[in-house]
């Protein structure tokens, strides 16, 4: 990350609009650069000063009454049914508008089709949202170095702890013989519901295993996002999502063992 880029990202950072991976990267940069920290402090102060001191112009009390009274209760709507894009049209006489309304309309039609197509491509699927959420959870745990609410390498401690706090009982496998050591478990909130997170360790790599009851069995999938490997599979009506900085092959081996 260059200084220029870091300075730009500070804005999204103080506005709470930076994604977890970039936040992590920027915070590493902040830790090393006193000048960047100072710039960050100044930005926060300025933002605060504007919020505190800039005039917020509340509407004059008579204006709302005047406008409420001006909202027609008459039959205007039956004359011409308004269209949802109509407000884009500038207010003005129809005659003046007629000259360019046809080319503008065809342009708008093309733009609309492009937009709808783009929308289909851009709208994040549920999988994409879950990917972002589990990744964010993993990065957050890394940032504050707090991976588990219950620390134990004993599956018979972790499982009841989680079961007591959830509406389901996640399977907890002991894979220490294969070099994947259970270190604990925590709760998190994914897809607007509480889920179990089993925390395993392989050498210095932490692996988060998110588990929740699955309605539909989804195909196994593996992807890499911001340097983290993410793998998902489903077994016995449970959905498993693995997030780690462990190599793809090892994570895949681990997933296969969990699935057995």
């Amino acid at each position, binding site marked *: 990350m260059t200084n*220029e*880029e870091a300075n*730009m*990202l500070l*804005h*999204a950072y103080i*506005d709470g*609009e*930076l*994604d977890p991976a*970039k936040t992590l990267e920027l915070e590493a940069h902040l830790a090393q650069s006193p*000048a960047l920290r*100072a*710039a960050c402090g*100044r*930005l926060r*102060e*300025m*933002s*605060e*000063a*504007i*919020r505190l*001191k*800039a*005039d*917020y*112009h*509340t*509407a*004059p009390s008579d*204006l*709302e009454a*005047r*406008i*409420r009274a*001006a*909202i*027609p*209760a*008459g*039959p*205007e*709507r039956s004359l011409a049914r*308004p*269209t*949802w*894009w*109509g*407000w*884009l049209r*500038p*207010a003005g006489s129809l005659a003046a508008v007629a000259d360019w309304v046809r080319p503008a309309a065809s342009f708008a039609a093309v733009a609309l089709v492009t*937009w709808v197509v783009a*929308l289909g491509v*851009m*709208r*994040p699927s549920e999988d*994409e949202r879950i990917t*972002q959420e589990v990744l964010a959870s993993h990065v957050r745990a890394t940032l504050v170095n707090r991976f588990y609410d219950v620390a134990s390498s004993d599956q018979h401690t972790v499982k009841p702890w989680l079961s007591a706090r959830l509406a389901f009982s996640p399977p907890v496998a002991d894979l220490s013989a294969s070099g994947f050591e259970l270190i604990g478990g925590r709760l998190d909130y994914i897809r607007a519901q509480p889920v179990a997170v089993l925390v395993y360790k392989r050498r210095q790599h932490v692996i988060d295993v998110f588990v929740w009851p699955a309605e539909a069995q989804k195909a196994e999938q593996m992807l890499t996002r911001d340097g983290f490997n993410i793998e998902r599979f489903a077994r016995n009506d449970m959905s498993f999502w693995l997030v780690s900085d462990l190599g793809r092959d090892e994570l895949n081996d681990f997933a296969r063992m969990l699935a057995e």
Partner: protein
Amino acid sequence: MTLAADSALLHEANPVPLRQTDSSPPHETLSERKRRFEQLVLPHFDAAYNLARWLTRNDQDARDVVQEAVLRAYRFFDGLRGEAKPWLLAIVRNSCLTWLAANRPAKTVGFEDGAVELLPSDEDGPDVLAARNFDRRMLNEAIAGLPAQFREVLILRELEDLSYKDIARIADVPIGTVMSRLARARRLLAESVRAASRISGTQVLK
């Protein structure tokens, strides 16, 4: 840089759905429609006026614009998809532009980026502007003096506390542009307050 900044924004790939629900029940009477409009839209009346007031920089103009925008919003209420606040503010903003172009052509500054030169920055020197010492009047004048495209993102972010996604929708620009405009708005503002304090000799520097 813009690309890198874009990809770093969490909410980008999440546009407001085009047709989320049909917001117009088929057998709604006019008074029901009016009541629904008042419930959904009028809570954002202050936000509408605040934006119009900051964009027109004048109370009477802001009143006219808000009145026109709210009536237009009512006429095209069936087009409301998603949240009411960004929807209304987008209409208010468009009404401001139309209104300013018609009534204050000389004052209307294009909403294009690039026309603004930044003064050389000495932000990293010891002569640092401490924002806590911003004089209230000076700050308001400096914001009012910002070019419109920077002023609007700053107002929407700091005074309305809107997300980049909503601001992008209102200003009709990509999220990356919201971020770069916000960055420039804050830079320009710091420069402007600093310059004003030098001229007036006010002790805003620490």
